[in-house]
Structure formats: structure tokens, C-alpha cells
């Protein structure tokens, strides 16, 4: 479904953020994209959603190259934007309509769908947003905004859902809800996170970006979590001193406090 070959990306007048990234993602896979801050996770998600054109390498979606020219093609561009959706790290970035209803209806309205009301009502129910439909989305809490954004993306019934640090701004209750929701969701999922404690709840396969912006691991998540040297190399674990009564010691941790 998704094929990346030798992807490299440099910011204009800036540093390299991706180096020789190659991988394939099949339909229905739930993939964790792991890496320390600045390793290139967000940029890779933006490449996958066709928002950033890599400096080198090739990206294919369902066998078709994804490029600015391809996305300008009305048929492919519309299909791609409908099937591949991205939840940005900050939900505020995505919200601009005057009401929650309008926000969710934004995508279907562009497609000229006839059952907009049914779709909005259904997804508002799924996310527990029914009572907020007439409210301006920017007046909601962080967790509720996240739900509005997810509803606005899922109302299009996408094939691929890309999530950028989806738990970063959520309270514990909302995190629990999101984990359960994603567990049942029947889409191809790519979740960028550095929260290793939640990773096993979100997917089975891991892609790890190293601090040199290369893909340093592509495989089973459980095996990665047992591979301490690799986790240390990727700066995904931390060490600190513990006190157990009079005993003090230190060791690496794979948990997170999020």
C-alpha cells in the first residue's frame, strides 16, 4: 500500500531531517513510528501525507508515485487526500470552522456527499460530541478538540490514518479512551510517538528513526522493547537513580510518564 525508497529530506537552508528511509506498509498494519525528539518522525508523517516533498527518494501509494504533480491531478489528488489523513500534533492547527458540526462536515461537503448530516451525526455520537455540535470547536478542551479533529478525518472513511504524538496533550482518561478507540479501528495506522509505555497498546510493528535520521529498526515491536542496546542507541530509554529505602541504584527504563 505504502512504499518508501531511499527517502532523504533537507529543510531549505537547514539541517537534514531524513536520511535514506526505505520501508513498506501493508493494508491494515498498525505501525509505531518511534524516535527521539528531532529524529524526523513528524517530517516522515508529512511525507507520507503528501504535504512535504522529499529532497530525494520515491514514495508510492497503491503503486502510484506521490509527487506534487501527481497530487495536482484532480482524480489522484482527491483520492489520496480522502484515503490518507493526518492528525497533527496540535489539534488547534486543524480547527477553523465556526462550529463542531461544520468542522466535521468540512470534508464531506467538499466531496459533495449527499448524506452529510447522517455522517456528522454518526461520528459525533462515536466521539461523544453530540452535545457540542453547535459550539465553536476552539472553545472545547484539548481532549475534545482532538476528538473533533479525529471525527473530521474519520468521517471521510480513510484507508490510512497518520497520528503525530496523539497522546502528547491528552489527560490520562482521554489517553485511555484513545487507545481503546484505535485498537478497534479498522484502518492502516501509523502512530508517531516516543511514549514507549503506550507503544504496545497502539501497534505490533515498530519503525525506529535514529538520531542520525536513518531508519535503524523495522520489525516486531515486542522484540524491539527487549533490545536494550538498540533502544539506548535511539535515545528511547532513560536512566536515573532510584532509592529503595537505604539502597540506591540506577538502570535504564523503557517506561514513560505521559
Amino acid at each position, binding site marked *: 500500500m505504502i512504499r518508501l525508497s531511499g527517502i532523504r529530506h533537507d529543510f531549505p537552508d537547514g539541517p537534514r531531517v531524513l536520511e535514506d528511509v526505505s520501508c513498506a506498509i501493508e493494508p491494515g498494519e498498525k505501525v509505531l513510528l518511534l524516535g527521539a525528539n528531532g529524529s524526523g518522525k513528524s517530517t516522515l508523517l*508529512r511525507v507520507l*501525507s*503528501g*504535504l*512535504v516533498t522529499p529532497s530525494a527518494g520515491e514514495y508510492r501509494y497503491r503503486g502510484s508515485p506521490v509527487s506534487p504533480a501527481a497530487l495536482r491531478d484532480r482524480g489522484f*489528488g*482527491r483520492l489520496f*487526500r*480522502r484515503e490518507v*489523513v*493526518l492528525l*497533527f500534533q*496540535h489539534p*488547534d*492547527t*486543524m*480547527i*477553523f*470552522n*465556526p462550529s463542531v458540526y461544520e468542522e466535521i462536515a*468540512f*470534508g464531506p461537503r*467538499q*466531496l459533495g456527499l449527499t448524506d452529510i448530516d447522517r455522517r456528522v451525526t454518526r461520528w459525533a455520537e462515536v466521539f461523544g460530541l453530540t452535545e457540542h455540535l453547535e459550539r465553536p470547536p*476552539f472553545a472545547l478542551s484539548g481532549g475534545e478538540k482532538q476528538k473533533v479533529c479525529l471525527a*473530521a*478525518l474519520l468521517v471521510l472513511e480513510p484507508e490510512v490514518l497518520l497520528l503525530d504524538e496523539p497522546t502528547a496533550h491528552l489527560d490520562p482518561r482521554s489517553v485511555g479512551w484513545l487507545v481503546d478507540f484505535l485498537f478497534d479501528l479498522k484502518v492502516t495506522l501509523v502512530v508517531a510517538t516516543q511514549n514507549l509505555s503506550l507503544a504496545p497498546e497502539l501497534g505490533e510493528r515498530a519503525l525506529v528513526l535514529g538520531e542520525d535520521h536513518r531508519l535503524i529498526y523495522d520489525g516486531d515491536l515486542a522484540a524491539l522493547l527487549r533490545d536494550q542496546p538498540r533502544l539506548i542507541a535511539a535515545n528511547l530509554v532513560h536512566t536515573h537513580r532510584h532509592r529503595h529505602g537505604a539502597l540506591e541504584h540506577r538502570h535504564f527504563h523503557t517506561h514513560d510518564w505521559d
Partner: protein
Amino acid sequence: MRPESRAGLERAALVLYLAAVVALTSVHDSQVLAAALGLVLILAGRQALALMRRVLVSVGPFCALVSASYAVMMAPAGRFSADYLILVNLRVAALTALTLLVVQRIKLARALGFSRGLLFVVTLATSQALTLRRVVEDYRLALKSRTLVRLGLRDRYRHSAASAARLLSKALHQSGEIALAMRARGFFDDDAPR
């Protein structure tokens, strides 16, 4: 060139720039302003075309809107002046081109190195500008990712209005936070409540 000499040159260039800004805002002759714009483009050398493009992108839409509004308001009353319109637009273009060229050629932090206060202001302004630029880019990409067909005027307006409001609120919030952090580090000790 030694760093001190370089800083001295940049400081002199900055003073010249400030003098030029005062001069350009005081001159009311289109020919002089056109010549000034030409001089700036000559100074830009091979980057003249790129500079002019940046001028058009950064102030072109604004100038077009103001000029059109002026024409619509003044023409029915018979008070429309093409000379005035040319003068104003030339002044904006010359000032913008000069500023963009100076920002490109001079390292402000080095030129203002003689004053710690000014240095703080430049550093804070630069950090704010970079943060807000990232936010604007995120808004743009988020809209692009949700755009399936060419957007209508209503959606464009809604997005611009929401982005501008959010940007202003973020800038205000950040300024407040920075001011608090500076106070916590003793910057405003003189007027701190006793």
C-alpha cells in the same frame, strides 16, 4: 576580516539604513523614490530579481488592496490622484526592498552587539518570529491535508480568520510567558513590587 571590523562595518550599515528609512519617508517625489528603488536593486546585484519577487510577495497583495480601496473611495468624488498612488506604492516598495536587503546582508545580533538591551530585543523577536513561522506553516499544511477540492472563498476566509486569531492569541500568550520568565530571572527587578 576580523570579527570586530566586520561588526563595525555592519553597525555603520545599520546606521545608514536607519538614515535611509527616514529619508525615504520624507521624500515626496516619485522620481527620487523610483531612483532609490533602482539603487537598492543595483546593490542587490544578481539577487535583484529574487529581491523584487520577495517584495511583491510580501507587500504586493496589501498594496493592491489599499490602492483599490483608495481608487473606489476617491474616484466617485473626483479626488483620485494617480500620482499619489504611484508615490505611496513606490515608497512602500523601496522601503521593503531596502529592509529585506539589509536583513539579508547584515547580522543584526552582531551589529547591535554594543547594547545588551537591544541584543535581548533582537534575540526575543527572532525567536518569536521563528516560532510563529512554524505555527503558520503548520496551519497551512493542516489545511492542505484536509483540502480535497479547490476551496471556496468562504472556507479560505474562515481559515485565514481562524489562523490570524490563533496566531495573535499565541503571540500574546508567548509574550506574557517570556515576560514572566524574564522577571523570574531578574530582568525587571527595578520595577518589581516590593
